[in-house]
């Protein structure tokens, strides 16, 4: 099992290349089987992961460009482990639900390549390898949105690509600058995050580098005011594209904050907390209000997605164990819940070819199974206790409460607003009288759709009731990281902030 992680990264790519040979009628079954094997492999990763063990496990290392310190260095900790499982799980589910006929072979192969880049991003420990997968993930997504999307698909796809590409180039400058600084201090060329984490960087330099990394990650999240590409992308993307975009690709940005920004630049993270928290709160409230104003179901979910990402960012920059653990957990739950919501909208869109709320009504009596599942997922999305959405949202906000109760209260309004627009959506479409005769002929969920949706519902409830198996490994990795940050902190403010972290830990 020495190369299990590499196997998980490159298995979908290899399978994708072989997929060119598989005939068109069987390619979907092929895709599902590959994604299932991949998911099982990632579960094997979980069972072999030791939460009490080293910080990074399944580490693999061999030099690629030794003169410049670029190595194939991968490994996972509790944070990335579950994001990998999320990627493989959502890929599998979205392939099961896939019902596009046009050029399906190209689509399945593209999804498999995309899966490789997602797993690669979450397991890279060398920054250049990380950057490589990070950038490469844009290409399949560009193709998915642009080839199978709606009317404005080309515009949406290109906007998505250029936004993120420009942001990550700025990040590349930051990466190279930091590597250069590392070399000038230690005389060693390296891009390994494990080496970089040990370096104490002067505060001024931290601030500049933090900004460079922040631009790259913030566009991906997307944080206000860089969020404008996302509604377009979601609005035009086919269902499978939206699912993967919302479930996994956005998480790359928040994962970047946790993996790079915090441990590399602890002082700058503290320094920027008020600024980022303000952005996050604007993002939560503003996009929630925008979501309420939408008439299109998919746009509601797209904006709610941005709003929830705001809570994740807020939790991350709480800079304490509850906040970060909560935000990582919220990444997972948001991945599953928003993926499920996009899938549900996709179901109704396939039947009626419209996503406007005003067209529906009374669906609860016409499609009872559909309404039940939609209801459960929706409750999770608004953060009802005993669903998965509650745990992450609550922990993130509890974490930030220790930093600033006022800001937390403002962030918390997002939950209330979320409940308003989500319940509004549910009321408009599912209750009352049907607004169109066509609605009455709609068929309830078929077997294939149930097969994709029921696992999601089960996960949502299971992890809502009993999140401990996931929280424990995340928490132990987060605490290791926070300890490191505390050791490295230089400014008095940062020392104080991160000391609170420690006290809180001891109090337990």
């Amino acid at each position, binding site marked *: 099992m020495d190369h299990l992680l590499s196997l998980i990264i490159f298995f979908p790519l290899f399978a994708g290349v072989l997929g060119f040979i598989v005939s068109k009628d069987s390619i979907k079954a092929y895709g599902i089987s590959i994604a299932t094997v991949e998911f099982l492999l990632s579960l094997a990763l979980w069972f072999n992961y030791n939460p009490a063990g080293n910080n990074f496990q399944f580490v693999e290392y061999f030099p690629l460009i030794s003169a*410049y310190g670029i190595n194939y260095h991968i490994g996972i900790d509790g944070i990335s482990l579950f994001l990998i499982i999320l990627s493989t799980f959502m890929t599998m589910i979205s392939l099961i639900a896939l019902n596009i006929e046009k050029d399906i072979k190209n689509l399945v192969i593209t999804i498999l390549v995309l899966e490789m880049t997602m797993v690669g991003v979450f397991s890279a420990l060398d920054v250049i390898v990380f950057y*490589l997968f990070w950038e490469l993930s844009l290409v399949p997504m560009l*193709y998915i949105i642009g080839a199978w999307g709606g009317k404005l698909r080309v515009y949406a796809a*290109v906007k998505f690509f*250029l936004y993120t*590409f420009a942001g990550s*180039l700025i990040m590349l*400058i930051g990466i190279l600058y930091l590597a*250069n600084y590392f070399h000038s201090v230690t005389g060693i060329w390296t891009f390994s995050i494990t080496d970089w984490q040990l370096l104490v960087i002067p505060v001024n330099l931290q601030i500049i580098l933090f900004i460079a990394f922040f631009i790259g990650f913030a566009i991906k999240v997307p944080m206000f005011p860089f969020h404008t590409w996302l509604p377009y992308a979601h609005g035009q993307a086919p269902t499978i594209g939206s699912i993967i975009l919302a479930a996994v690709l956005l998480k790359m940005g928040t994962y970047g904050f946790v993996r790079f920004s915090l441990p590399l630049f602890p002082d700058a993270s503290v320094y920027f907390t008020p600024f980022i928290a303000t952005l996050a709160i604007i993002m939560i409230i503003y996009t929630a209000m925008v979501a309420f104003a939408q008439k299109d179901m998919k746009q509601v979910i797209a904006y709610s997605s941005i709003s929830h990402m705001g809570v994740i960012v807020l939790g991350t920059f709480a800079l304490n164990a509850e906040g970060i653990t909560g935000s990582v957990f919220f990444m997972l739950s948001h991945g599953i819940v928003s993926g499920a919501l996009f899938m549900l909208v996709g179901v109704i869109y396939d039947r009626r070819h419209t996503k406007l709320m005003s067209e529906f009504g009374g669906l609860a009596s016409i499609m009872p199974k559909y309404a039940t599942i939609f209801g459960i997922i929706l409750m999770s999305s608004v953060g009802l206790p005993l669903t998965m959405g509650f745990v992450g949202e609550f922990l993130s906000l509890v974490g930030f409460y220790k930093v600033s109760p006022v800001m937390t209260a403002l962030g918390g309004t997002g939950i209330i607003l979320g409940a308003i627009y989500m319940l509004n959506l549910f009321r408009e479409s599912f209750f009352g009288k049907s607004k169109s005769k066509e609605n009455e002929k709609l068929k309830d969920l078929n077997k294939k759709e149930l097969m994709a949706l029921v696992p999601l519902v089960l996960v949502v409830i299971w992890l809502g009731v009993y999140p401990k198996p996931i929280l424990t490994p995340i928490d132990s990795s987060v605490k290791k990281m926070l300890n490191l940050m505390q050791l490295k902190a230089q400014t008095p403010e940062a020392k104080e902030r991160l000391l609170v972290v420690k006290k809180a830990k001891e109090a337990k």
Partner: protein
Amino acid sequence: MLHTITISLSSLHISTLMPMIIVILGGLGILCIDLINKNLSKSLYVMLSILVLVIDLGVVLGYSGPSRGMFDMILSDGIATLGQIIILVASMLFIPLSLTSKRFHEYSHPEFFALFLFMTAGFQFMVATDNLMLIFIGLETASLSLYTIIALHNLEKSFEAAIKYFTMGALAAGFFVFSAMLIYGVTGSIELHKIAKVIALDSFASQLGLLGAVAFMFAALGFKLSFIPFHTWVPDVYEGASAATAGYISIVPKIAGLIVALRFFDIFITAGNEWVYNVLYVIIIITMTFSNIMALVQDSVKRMLAYSSISHAGFVMTAVLVNTTASHNALFLYWIMFTFTNLGAFAMLWISRYKRSEFSAKYDHPYQKFAGMVTIKPVAATIMAIFMLSLAGVPPFALFWGKLYLLGAIINSGNTFLAILMVLNSAIAAYYYLKLVVFMFLKEPDPKANVAYMKNASTALKTIVGFSAAVTILAIFTIEPFLEMISSYVVASGF
């Protein structure tokens, strides 16, 4: 009364001249064969040319004699060797592009291959000397052959391109000679290493003359390397030349010009001349930015690639500007990666060359022609897309590594602002490369059009494309050996 001068043959070190002698003899040999039998196939000449180039490459690689020869005119230091390796390998990869399945006018004349070899010799002279006169001779030999090769394509556009290139080139040649004259007047020498010594001693006592010389040199090299505002010939020449020749123009003359620029500007930048530094800085920024903006609005893929090659030349000139060992390594790495990518891109255009142009009266390769290519020729479209993504600098494809290393070298030297300008330019550039990808992958094919993307394909062309695609995709594994080779040569010549 003239004195007799005796020079022993051994002190000349004729071996330093061997690489050029071989290709020139090869070219003459091809002409002689043509005299004897007129009906030989072009495949014979292609193979002979490749063999001559292979022998030449062997001689260049195996050379271990003194670094100067022929009255100190020839300089075979590390940079010269490296430059010749790139020139020869690129030529070897480009010459098989003439083995098309369609007949083209130029390849039915064996003179084409002779000219091609003479041109290679000219470029070799340019890189293997630091004597301004010899550089000039090399430049002219190569350029005159190149003008003819362009015109041999035998279309109206090609004649226009050749004449345009010739006129502009003649002007540039005039500038070059003017510059050399002024330099000789000020420093009393036309050899760069002696000029460097004089300038270092003199500390710019004769500012005005020298600056005039530098200004003329800017113009002369600017024409060759297509810096803005000396770039006006580029798009038309690319449009008029065959795709194979255009690809060649984008690579081999540029590396020769880059090496001359490296040797020349190194003197002034090392001496700390701020005027030269600032002018070069401004020209580079303008070149990168304007060409990128122009490329955005092109309708023809070939013209877009023309502007893109201007932008890449500006990009890589930053390595000359910051003038550190790491940046010089980056320059060569970048250009090697660029060679493979651009070779592939132009070869793909060449493969899709179709005599009747159905989409545009003006252009052979309008974007519209590639619409929906993925549904018709998925593999070819994917390969073309990979070349475009590589040009845009998307990892893990070839040019990303060149860009990474170049940006790293520039940040190392403390020019972070320049690096930021460069990445902003890359972001603009991504748009026009993406445009072709969008056309190939995201648009529906034009139902009227009977497009034949592979009309001109032959095994030889497919092999070249496959080879460059393989290098482009697997570039990550080639960086280490390339870097080792490059830095051993660059360090050996003290740059």
